[in-house]
């Protein structure tokens, strides 16, 4: 897994490439905690190059979403999910709690 974070004025874009499983999910959690730890709660996750995500990765996302939405201070938007991964999000019931955009630009524009 590779993570590339870009800080913009009003949000952070985190691009995740490869596999998020029980081995790599802690690294994603650490990166997101670093951003929220700096008081930045508007995050766009760019999943266009994501190959796989397990429930360990989904736990990180739900925990980060809860943290960012607390006190209405922010949000976590998902962008560019490949179709097979979107099916996993749907199965987990995540499509009703996350705002999902087809591309990063529209996610950044709406957060």
């Amino acid at each position, binding site marked *: 897994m590779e993570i590339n974070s870009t800080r913009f004025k009003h949000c952070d874009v985190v691009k995740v490439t490869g*596999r998020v499983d*029980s*081995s790599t999910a802690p690294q994603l959690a650490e990166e997101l905690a670093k951003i929220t730890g700096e008081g930045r709660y508007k995050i766009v996750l760019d999943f266009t190059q994501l190959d796989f995500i*397990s429930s360990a990765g989904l*736990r990180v996302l*739900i925990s980060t979403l*809860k943290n960012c939405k607390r006190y209405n201070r922010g949000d976590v938007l998902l962008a560019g999910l490949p179709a*097979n991964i979107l099916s996993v999000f749907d199965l*987990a*019931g995540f499509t009703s709690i996350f705002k999902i955009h087809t591309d990063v630009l529209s996610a950044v524009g709406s957060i």
Partner: protein
Amino acid sequence: MDLSDTQTRMTTRTYAGRYDNLAEIATFVRQEANLAGLSFKDVFEVETAVDEAVSNIIEHAYVGEGIGDVTVTCLPEPNGIRIILEDHGIPFDPACVPLPDTHAQLKKRKEHGLGYFFLCQLMDEVKFEFEKNVNRLTLFKNKS
């Protein structure tokens, strides 16, 4: 270790129960599911189910990494693929796993419990057996 039977194409590999082996296990299972003729979607679902199952073995049966091995057997069948996972940890009782509420509001969402749910949703057969210090989980995926 790779024990292959060319007639049945049954292939067995044994891995140390560590999370950093998940990617290698996924490659193995994906390759066998492709050879069995499963669709792209089915292969992805098998990969997801096996990842969740092996993660559960490490977390719940061995209660940690590097404690024991996980043996993965792939057996292609005319209508799908059978995958057998064996470990020597604490028997895992699926009846103890509460199903997640996938319709709950964000505040009420629990962060655990999705792994076993995925396993049951994505595979056509899920069978747990416990005998003589061996826990065996048999998964079957039909070709769609």
